[in-house]
């Protein structure tokens, strides 16, 4: 990095950076209100649906005794998957000294926090007796993978919040020092409290760097665990389609694909909405496109293993399951997900032409939708084909179709995740100001200065 020597130049650049990166906090127009209105409306409808579900029983969903896990669990797996990007971008890439990914860290952490928080809520939505949630802690049996999942999800949420918060502290101090009339009093007060009296001396920065590094290392096993353990919810059973030893890495690789796509979409939204063209640059989208190719290839490799090997053997129950997804009732969904959601994006993103911001984003949207349906395919078809025949039960026990209540509650989860992300973006800069400024060559000593009032 080139150090900017002139104080005047440094101050000027810093002013510009702060101005640009606080636009998301300051900006408040009709669109903001409308967006909040939409989100809160959907959340309200979803909560109402959940109320109906609690009152009338889980039977209001399309789930029955054979397909006893449905869209909620698929959605849960999807959210856990998306959350994994926090660990990939803000920890792994950082530790590998990949410098281009630095401005993206906070976006990745926003996604991680929102997704993992919602994963926790979705799993409660799926419970037959949410009123007995505390039993998990009172009577918890550590031999059950659910307990492992609860433990790692909570640990991951904690570390993700810390990874979000620690690099935020110097930013909060900058906001505390520089912002004033343009923000409401409560916000300023919040910055002042949350910045913990940050002074910005070398010792404090050392502590932050050190703590960040510890967290970045800690989050690697935790991050790998959360999705590996989630995959074990399936792999720990004897069912055809789930009884597979590669479920852990298969899920982790798939999670990276979904997460990278989610981050790209969010980056583009910020770039557009908050005019951050010079911050989320074309190069970032290009690099994220390359990253998507890399994790996509990894995922493709696991997919080949997961489907080709048992497909070659077509062992009894496994064969029935595979035929159902290759050529049966899930064939259309399966092949669209594999081809449109994975293979085609990989091929397109190999070309520089498609690694422009808009096209990477559009491809990411397709990838993310594909990733959601992929979880649907992982969860449901297996349950429709148990070892023993499904007989003497009503017709709706044979095949699963989500009901409107399930769709309402699933939409709720998306909207609630977006609400968390929006609130984070409205309260805190979407890029770490001090890190970014330092990267541009501004010395740390200018961060703690109060700007001259003109």
């Amino acid at each position, binding site marked *: 990095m080139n150090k900017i020597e002139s104080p005047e130049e440094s101050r000027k650049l810093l002013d510009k950076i702060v101005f640009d990166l606080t636009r998301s906090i300051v900006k408040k127009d009709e669109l903001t209100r409308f967006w909040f209105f939409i989100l809160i409306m959907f959340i309200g409808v979803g909560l109402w649906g959940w109320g109906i579900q609690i009152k009338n029983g889980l039977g209001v969903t399309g789930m029955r005794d054979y397909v*006893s*896990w449905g869209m909620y669990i698929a959605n849960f797996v999807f959210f856990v998957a998306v959350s994994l990007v926090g660990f990939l971008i803000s920890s792994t890439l950082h530790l590998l000294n990949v410098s281009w990914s630095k401005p993206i860290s906070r976006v990745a952490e926003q996604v991680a926090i929102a997704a993992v928080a919602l994963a926790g809520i979705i799993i409660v939505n799926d419970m*037959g007796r949410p009123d*007995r949630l505390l*039993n998990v802690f009172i009577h918890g049996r550590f031999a059950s993978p659910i307990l492992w999942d609860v433990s790692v999800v909570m640990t991951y949420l904690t570390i993700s919040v810390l990874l979000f918060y620690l690099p935020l502290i110097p930013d909060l101090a900058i906001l505390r020092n520089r912002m004033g009339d343009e923000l409401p009093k409560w916000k300023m007060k919040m910055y002042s409290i949350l910045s913990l009296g940050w002074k910005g001396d070398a010792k404090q920065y050392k502590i932050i760097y050190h703590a960040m590094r510890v967290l970045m290392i800690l989050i690697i096993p935790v991050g790998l665990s959360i999705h590996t353990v989630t995959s074990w*919810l399936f792999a720990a059973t004897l069912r055809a389609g789930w009884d597979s030893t590669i479920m852990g890495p298969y899920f982790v690789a798939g999670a990276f694909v979904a997460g990278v796509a989610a981050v790209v979409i969010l980056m583009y939204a910020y770039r557009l909405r908050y005019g951050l063209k010079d911050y989320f640059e074309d190069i970032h989208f290009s690099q994220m496109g390359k990253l998507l190719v890399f994790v996509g290839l990894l995922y493709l490799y696991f997919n080949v293993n997961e489907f080709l090997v048992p497909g070659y053997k077509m062992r009894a129950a496994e064969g029935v399951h595979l035929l159902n997804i290759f050529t049966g009732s899930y064939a259309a969904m399966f092949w669209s997900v594999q081809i449109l959601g994975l293979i085609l994006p990989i091929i397109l993103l190999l070309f520089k032409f498609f690694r422009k911001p808009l096209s990477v984003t559009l491809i990411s949207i397709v990838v993310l939708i594909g990733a959601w349906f992929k979880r649907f395919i992982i969860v449901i078809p297996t349950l429709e084909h148990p070892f023993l*025949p499904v*007989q003497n039960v009503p017709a709706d026990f044979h095949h699963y179709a989500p009901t409107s209540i399930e769709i309402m509650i699933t939409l709720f989860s998306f909207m609630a995740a977006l609400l968390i992300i929006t609130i984070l973006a409205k309260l805190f800069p979407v890029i770490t100001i001090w890190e970014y400024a330092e990267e541009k060559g501004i010395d740390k000593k200018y961060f703690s200065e109060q700007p001259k009032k003109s």
Partner: protein
Amino acid sequence: MEKKTRRNFLKTLGASMGAAGVIGGSTILSSCSSKVEAAAGDKITLLTSGGELVVVDKAMLKPAEMPSLTENQKRGREGLPGKSWVMVIDLSKCRNARECMKACQHHHQLRPEMHHINVLQMQDAEDTSPYYMPKQCQHCDNPPCTKVCPVNATFKREDGIVLIDNERCIGCRFCVAACPYSARVFNWFEPKDAEKYEGVTYNIECNVPQKKGTISKCLFSADKLRDDELPTCVTACPNGVYWFGDKNEDAVTNGTTGETVSFSKLVKDNAAYKLMDELGTEPRVFYLPPKDRTTPFQGNIEEHHS
């Protein structure tokens, strides 16, 4: 301590009789609300577990000995000491009478679509003949379901029975996913006659009253075993399909004929097998092969892995 009021007494009675397969009309329960003192000579009609209507003097009714919920849960978790229950199902005898299914649904207060025991129409290969196979919880010795339960709401007892505590179940349905025998059913809606059994003390060994949002499955009629009786399905069968007994005593009794034979001899002589034993679940239910069947198969075989 529960007060021994008339209402509670009748509730307890309802529960115990309910467990045995209640309830004449609802005579008992409707009498709950009336304040009539049981004068000598007052008659009441009850339905016995055997399905007979009997008229008894109200004064003869004694409160059934019902342990408190905690006591019930405690002894239900321990099981019957020294026992090792096994079931042998003779497939050559099953004619799809489905009396077992009916009696079971009655015993456990199940909705019509819920089967603790389900008589399946099976066909092992295209060229082999179809047959009927009653299928319930296999009470595995290596149960995949209890392993995954996050709250220890389903567990393996000393006497071999896999039981459920629906006062603790959180309704995550991991056990349903884990069970390869599709033996578990869930209370997706309000259970049958929920209002009738409201306030009745839960009986863990019968899993009644059923509760919305919790799991249920075959329990080998653990409540009846405690009373030295055979399980409901075993006695309900008109065709002599079921043998049930204690492996430690090496004796199984046929629920239809009442005949008692050596368990080990029965399974050896008839080349008994366990359902999907290759999964390593070690079931406690043994099947005798469906050979020399006396009645032809009359169902239409549904697609096997539909």
